[in-house]
């Protein structure tokens, strides 16, 4: 096929995007109705999820076929890489919103409620006696007394797990480039297993927080930032671990070569990104 080299592959037409849109429609309408208290919403949502999963499988399937069929030249590959990079950047900005909220609450909102800066009267008239500390569930003690999630124990273990998994995925990557399929398989498997262990421990931590510490999503601003940040991170780990698993299955099927393995690399980048977010979380949520 001489074309693949000098011509940018432009797919003909595709029905997957519109299927995805229909999935999103069901998903969003379903969740909204559900939140509004209509039980049927839940089922509509499930339909949406099913359609989206169907779409993802179909869409990625097509791409994989095209890729293994040699339709993509280096330029196409480069487009995918850049696309992934900018997608991750958008995710960084999404997390930035929540980190920003944490920063704002800790260094501004809470001290102001305690009377800092130009808010002497805020404290004096509305929240008398409230002293700004962190962690806090606010001057009204929303959600009741709670215990603070310390940086040691499970969170520390989880940190080690994620950092290790970042190393293992890198080893797997190098193995892939060096053509050492055995090492690749082992270390890739190790990576997603570590990912799932992380999720399991995170779930343990949540259960512990809810049952033993009275630390909940509703525990004022501390609970809100804690659970939203770790929760969104956990969701990303879940997605990442699933994608790693898929990569592993593809490796088992013999996909990827030393030069052509964009999907693998994209997932690896994603995994590193999830890892970096965790380090941020560990420092700013658990530690400081």
């Amino acid at each position, binding site marked *: *096929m001489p074309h693949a080299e*000098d*011509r*940018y592959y*432009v*797919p*003909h*037409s*595709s029905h997957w*995007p*519109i299927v*995805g*849109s*229909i999935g*999103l*429609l069901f998903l*969003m*309408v379903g969740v*909204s109705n559900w939140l*509004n208290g209509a039980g049927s919403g839940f089922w509509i949502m499930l339909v949406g999820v099913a359609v989206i999963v169907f779409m993802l499988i179909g869409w990625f399937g097509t791409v994989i*076929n*095209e890729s293994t*069929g*040699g*339709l993509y030249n280096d*330029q196409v590959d*480069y*487009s*995918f890489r*850049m*696309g992934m990079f*900018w*997608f991750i950047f*958008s*995710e960084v*900005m*999404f997390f*930035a*919103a*929540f980190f*920003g*909220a944490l920063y*704002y*609450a800790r260094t501004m*909102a809470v001290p*102001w409620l305690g009377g800092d800066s*130009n808010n002497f009267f805020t404290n004096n008239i509305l929240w008398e006696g409230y002293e700004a500390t962190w962690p806090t*569930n*606010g*001057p009204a003690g*929303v*959600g009741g007394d709670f215990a603070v999630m310390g940086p040691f124990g499970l969170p520390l273990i989880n940190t080690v797990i994620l950092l290790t998994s970042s190393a293992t995925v890198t080893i797997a990557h190098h193995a892939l480039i060096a053509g050492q399929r055995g090492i690749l398989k082992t270390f890739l498997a190790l990576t997603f297993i570590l990912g799932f262990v992380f999720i399991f421990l995170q779930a343990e931590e949540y259960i512990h927080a809810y049952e033993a510490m009275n630390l909940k*999503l*509703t525990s*004022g*601003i501390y*609970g*809100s*930032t804690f659970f*939203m940040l770790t929760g969104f991170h956990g969701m990303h780990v879940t997605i990442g671990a699933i994608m790693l698993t898929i990569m592993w299955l593809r490796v088992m099927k013999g996909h990827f070569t030393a030069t052509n393995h964009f999907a693998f690399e994209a997932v690896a980048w994603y995994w590193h990104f999830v890892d970096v977010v965790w380090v941020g979380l560990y420092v700013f949520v658990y530690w400081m």
Partner: protein
Amino acid sequence: MTTAVAEAQDAHDEHHGPEKGFRRWLFTTNHKDIGTLYLIFSLIMFFIGGTMALVIRSELMQPGLQFVHPEFFNSMTTMHALIMVFGAVMPAFVGLANWMIPMMIGAPDMALPRMNNWSFWILPVAFGILLSTLFMEGGAPAGGWTMYPPLILQTGDAFPFLIFSVHLMGISSIMGAINIIVTILNMRAPDMWLLKMPIFVWTWLITAYLLIAVMPVLAGAVTMLLTDQFFGTSFFLAAGGGDPVMFQHIFWFFGHPEVYIMILPAFGVVSEIIPTFSRKPLFGHDSMVYAASCIAFLSFIVWAHHMFTVGMPLSGQLFFMFATMLIAVPTGVKVFNWVATMWRGSMTFETPMLFALAFVFLFTIGGFSGLMLAIAPADIQYHDTYFVVAHFHYVLVPGSIFAIMAAAYYWLPKWTGHMYNESLGKLHFWLSTIFVNVTFFPMHFLGLAGMPRRIPDYSTQFADFNLIASIGALGFGISQLVFVYVLLTAKKGATATDRVWEAPKGLEWTVPSPAPYHTFDTPPKARIAEEAFE
């Protein structure tokens, strides 16, 4: 090789044209088709949003309530803004990007064609959901397009639908932006190095960067609204240690760059058109690029100028005032460069040029009122009055919208292969320009005299100017029907030449009119230096 791939390969080889019937539009991966879809969608949204504006203006025509109830009025204001911003202006620019960028840089298509289709087809879902809230219990969202809590939490059933439709708009914009960045960075013809890129491409590159940087932040902000409402978080609840004002900070961290997202591509369009009809190269191409980058950078550090009255500490007020004022400098460079491009040119005044010229005049007026708003102590008087409404409609309607109109007239012959009706185009221009001023200029006076924004009814001293503004709005609306007529009859005009205009620069004028379904199968290597840039 699997059969599926083989088929795809065959189809690719035989130089296929578009598919037939509805499949063409639903399944297309062609940048021109998708561009067309975006543009048509945008026009529809412009009419829906405009109809809502007309509801607003009818109610405000006289003091006293005549047509609607206050809550519905607030819904109209909110929906009008959301639809115009996310449904009309942004998709229009994405549509232009889709159509023009691959042609301007010599690419065969957008870099990620299937995703391109998806970015578009999410939009009808998002706006379908948003518009459906009009029929829900508790009415459509009525808390303003800024969605400040706690008020927005008083929305009825519409609330989650609002949040998710904003999420969808965000997803669509982000995917669109990724596609544009990748196309520009990866698909340029080999000898088109960055600073040789046409200025429209440049402004879009910067805009796309802004989009990817701030749309996720908006998504985060509305997600916090959602969890505050349904899952008991306290982000915006002081009793729990949060702060309602925090939402405003996050929103405007998105919101201010957002307004430049709506103007930078407009700058690009105007910078393409003015040189063509002045028959003179764009003055200071490179400094235009630097200025746009400067604007983009500054846009991240000025957001709290929307919040001079929320009770920020003094240091914050001063910082945001100074930073905001600075934006006048790079924007000034742009305006001066446009004037310098015209200077000693050989101008003609076809419709696109007329719109571009009106853009320069009227956007500058909007910029001046922006500068006045930036003066913190004065903004305390202007804030949330019709002075602000006047400001942003000047930069958005004769700003963004006029630039979109200009672009449409400029490239229409390239799209359709026919010249549009020039006299009707001119008629459309003059009506629009007169009425846009009749509509929005009196709003400056209203604001200064003390009329707050977002009110369904007002004291009698504001009656006269409101009447004038309402008449203007009606006139402006009707003038747009001329535009629709021009579009509908666009294919009846004389056949357009490849260059269309006398002296346009750029690769898009080297291909036939109408542009073939697939433009550049092989990159136009040598052509750039010779033809496009002389």
